[in-house]
C-alpha cells in the first residue's frame, strides 16, 4: 500500500485499511456518476445565465465609468460593478469552463480547450499550472507549485529559508498583484531570482504567449477604454485599475482559503504514479478546505467555497457542488476522514496564523510554543495568587 499520506502527526483523519480506502473511493465514484448522468438543460441554463450576468454587468459598469466616471458616486458604483463582473468572469465562468465542466454542451464558446479569460494568465498556461499540475499533485510539496507559489512558506514540510521571514508582507502584495503572479506562474521566476537554475533568456523564450496576452490586457484596460472615454480617460483608467485589484484580492483570498487553512494537509513528494484513484480522492479531501456562506458567496468564489468537491470532481459543473457536498461530508464522517469546513472569516484568519507560523523555522515555532506556554502558565499562577 502506498498511501501518499503517511499520516501527518497532526492529521485529523483516521487511518484506513486498503479495503476501506477502495470502498470509500467506489462510493465517491458513485456520487460523481449520479450527477454526471443527470446533466442537462438546468446546467446549460445556469452557465448561460452566469455569462449573461458577466456581459450585462460589464456593459453597465464600463458605460458608467465612460460617461459618468467624473462623478464620485458613479465612479464608485461603476468600479465596484466592473470588479464584480471580472470576479464572476474569472471564477464562476472562466475557471469552471476551462476545467471542461461544460464541454458536454458542445458549445464551442464554452469549450474548455479554447476559452480564454479576462486576466493576465493565458488559458493555456493556466490549464497547465492549475488543471494539470495543481489538480494532479495537490498539496505535494515541491510538486504542486500552488504550495506557496515558491514565494511563501505555507507548510512545515517546506524547507525554511531566510526569505520566508517576509512571509506576511509578501503574501499581502501577492494578493494585490495576484493576476500578475498567476500569469507568471508557469515561468518559475524563483528559479532565476533565488535558485539561479534558469536564465532570463529562457524566461523570455517561454513567455511569448504570455507577452501577447499581457499586451492585450494592458491595452484593453489602460489604453483602449480610457481613450474611448475621451475627457473621462482618467476616471476610466483609475476605475479599471481598481477593479483589477478588487478581483485580484478576492480571487487570492478564495484560493488561500482553499488550501492554506489550518487543517489543510500538505504531503511529501512521493510516487503518485502508484497512487490509486481512491487514494487520490482521499488526498484531495485532506488537502482542501471549504467555506460556508450564502448562494452569492458561492457564485462569487466560483464555487471554490466547495474546494473539496471541486478537487474530487474538477470536471463536474460547479453549480452541482452544493448538491454533492452533504453527501461527501456524510461519507467522510462515516470513514473518519476530516472534512475541513468553516465560515469565510474563520478560514481566512487561520490562513494568516499559518503564514505567520511558517515564516519561522520549525524549531523556532516549537520554542515560541514553549515560550507562550510558559507565559500562559506563569499568568495562570499569578492569577491564582491574586484570587
Amino acid at each position: 500500500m502506498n498511501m501518499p499520506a503517511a499520516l501527518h502527526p497532526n492529521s485529523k483523519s483516521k487511518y484506513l485499511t486498503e479495503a476501506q480506502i477502495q470502498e470509500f473511493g467506489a462510493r465517491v465514484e458513485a456520487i460523481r456518476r449520479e450527477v454526471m448522468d443527470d446533466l442537462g438543460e438546468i446546467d446549460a441554463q445556469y452557465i448561460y445565465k452566469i455569462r449573461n450576468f458577466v456581459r450585462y454587468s460589464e456593459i453597465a459598469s464600463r458605460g458608467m465609468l465612460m460617461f459618468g466616471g467624473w462623478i464620485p458616486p458613479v465612479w464608485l458604483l461603476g468600479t465596484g460593478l466592473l470588479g464584480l463582473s471580472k470576479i464572476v468572469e474569472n471564477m464562476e465562468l472562466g475557471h469552471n469552463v476551462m476545467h471542461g465542466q461544460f464541454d458536454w454542451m458542445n458549445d464551442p464558446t464554452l469549450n474548455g480547450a479554447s476559452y480564454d479569460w479576462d486576466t493576465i494568465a493565458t488559458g493555456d498556461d493556466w490549464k497547465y499550472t492549475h488543471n494539470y499540475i495543481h489538480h494532479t499533485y495537490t498539496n505535494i510539496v515541491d510538486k504542486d507549485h500552488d504550495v506557496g507559489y515558491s514565494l511563501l512558506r505555507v507548510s512545515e514540510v517546506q524547507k525554511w529559508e531566510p526569505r520566508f521571514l517576509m512571509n506576511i508582507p509578501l503574501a499581502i502584495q501577492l494578493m494585490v498583484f495576484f493576476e500578475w503572479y498567476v500569469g507568471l506562474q508557469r515561468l518559475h521566476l524563483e528559479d532565476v531570482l533565488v535558485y539561479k537554475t534558469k536564465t532570463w533568456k529562457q524566461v523570455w523564450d517561454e513567455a511569448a504567449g504570455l507577452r501577447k496576452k499581457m499586451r492585450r490586457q494592458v491595452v484593453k484596460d489602460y489604453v483602449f477604454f480610457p481613450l474611448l472615454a475621451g475627457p473621462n480617460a482618467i476616471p476610466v483608467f483609475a476605475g479599471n485599475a481598481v477593479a483589477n485589484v478588487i478581483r485580484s484580492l478576492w480571487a487570492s483570498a478564495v484560493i488561500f482559503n482553499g488550501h492554506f487553512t489550518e487543517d489543510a494537509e500538505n504531503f511529501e513528494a512521493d510516487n503518485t504514479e502508484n497512487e490509486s484513484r481512491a487514494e487520490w480522492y482521499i488526498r484531495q479531501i485532506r488537502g482542501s478546505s471549504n467555506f460556508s456562506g450564502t448562494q452569492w458567496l458561492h457564485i462569487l468564489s466560483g464555487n471554490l467555497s466547495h474546494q473539496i468537491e471541486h478537487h474530487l470532481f474538477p470536471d463536474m459543473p460547479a453549480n452541482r457542488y452544493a448538491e454533492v457536498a452533504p453527501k461527501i461530508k456524510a461519507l467522510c464522517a462515516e470513514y473518519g476522514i476530516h472534512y475541513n469546513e468553516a465560515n469565510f472569516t474563520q478560514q481566512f484568519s487561520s490562513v494568516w496564523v499559518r503564514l505567520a507560523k511558517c515564516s519561522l523555522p520549525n524549531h523556532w515555532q516549537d520554542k515560541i510554543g514553549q515560550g507562550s506556554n510558559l507565559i500562559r502558565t506563569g499568568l495562570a499562577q499569578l492569577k491564582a495568587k491574586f484570587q
Partner: protein
Amino acid sequence: MSTSVEYKPEWIREDFIDFIDFIDFIDFIAEKINPVWPLKKVKACVVEIQALSPDFYKIHLRPNQNFQAQRFQAGQSILVTLAMNGVRQQRSYSIVTLLDNGDVILAIKRQGKMSNALTQLPAGAVVELSQPQGNFVLPAPVPSLCFIASGSGITAIYSLLQKAVVSSTQPIDLLYFTRDDAFHAEIKTLALMYPYFKYHHFNTVEQHQHLCQQLDLSEQFHSEYFQMTADENLEAQPVQFLRSQQDFQANSNLLDSAEAAGLRPAHGCRMGICNTCSCTKVSGSVRNLLTGEIDHNHNTQIKLCVTQAISPVVINL
C-alpha cells in the same frame, strides 16, 4: 513544456470583452433580439415539414444571409445543430435540393433522438447550420454513371442525379432499393424526361427479392458512408484524460468508450466531420477508423469519435 510559444490569444472567440470582437458583441445582441440576425452564424428558419412516409420527412429550411448557397455542389451535406436538453447536438444531412432562393431541402428519416426532434419542429423554429461541405460530388466532366441507393441514402443520390441529368448525355443508371418509395415519383419523372437515364426501382416490401449484381467495383466506385465501426477484436486499452483526471478502458471508439465510462467530452457529428471532439493525444498509439491510419506520435490532434486506441493512450482533455 514550452507549448506556450505557440499560444495565440483567441481573437475570434465569442466574447465582446475584447474590442476586437466587436462583431461578436453585435451578434450576441442581435441574436437576443432575433435569432436569425447574427452576422456570422448560419441560422435557418423551418418553413415547412412534410411527411414522405410515416418515418421519412422532407424539411424545408430558410437560411439567413450568412449561408453561402453559391458554394453548394450537388451531393454535399450540411451539419444541423440543435440544442437538446442543454446539449448542442450536431448531425450531417445530405442536401436534397437547394432552391433558387437559397432555401435548403433536407429529407430526414426518424431513427434517433436528433432526427426525431428535427422532424417534429414547428414552423418558424430556428436551427443552426454549417456551410455546405463534403466531397461526395460529381466528377468533371460527368462520365457515364451508375448510382446505387437504399432507403434514406437516396437523399444524396437524388441530389447528384438532378445535377447529372442536366450536365451530360452519358448513360446514367440508378438502382434504388426502398421500402417507402420516397422521391420515387420525382425520379420516375426524370426518367421520362431524359432517355439516357435508366431507373431501376425495387420496392423491398412488395418485391422481397434477392439480387445479384454484376458490377465492376473498381476505382470508378465512389461511396459515402455515414457510419463506421471499431474493430471489436482488439483488446481494450487504458485511456487517461489528463485534465479531467479520468481513466477508463476503451474497446470501441474513444468517444463511445469515454461516454460508457460516464464522461461527457465535447462532441458533434460522431462521424469525424465536424471536428468538435478533436483534442490532443499526448502519447500512445491510435488507429483512425476512417482511414485505417496508425498514429504513434506524441502531441497529435485526433478526433475522439473516429479513433480507436491500440495501446495505452493519454489525452489532454
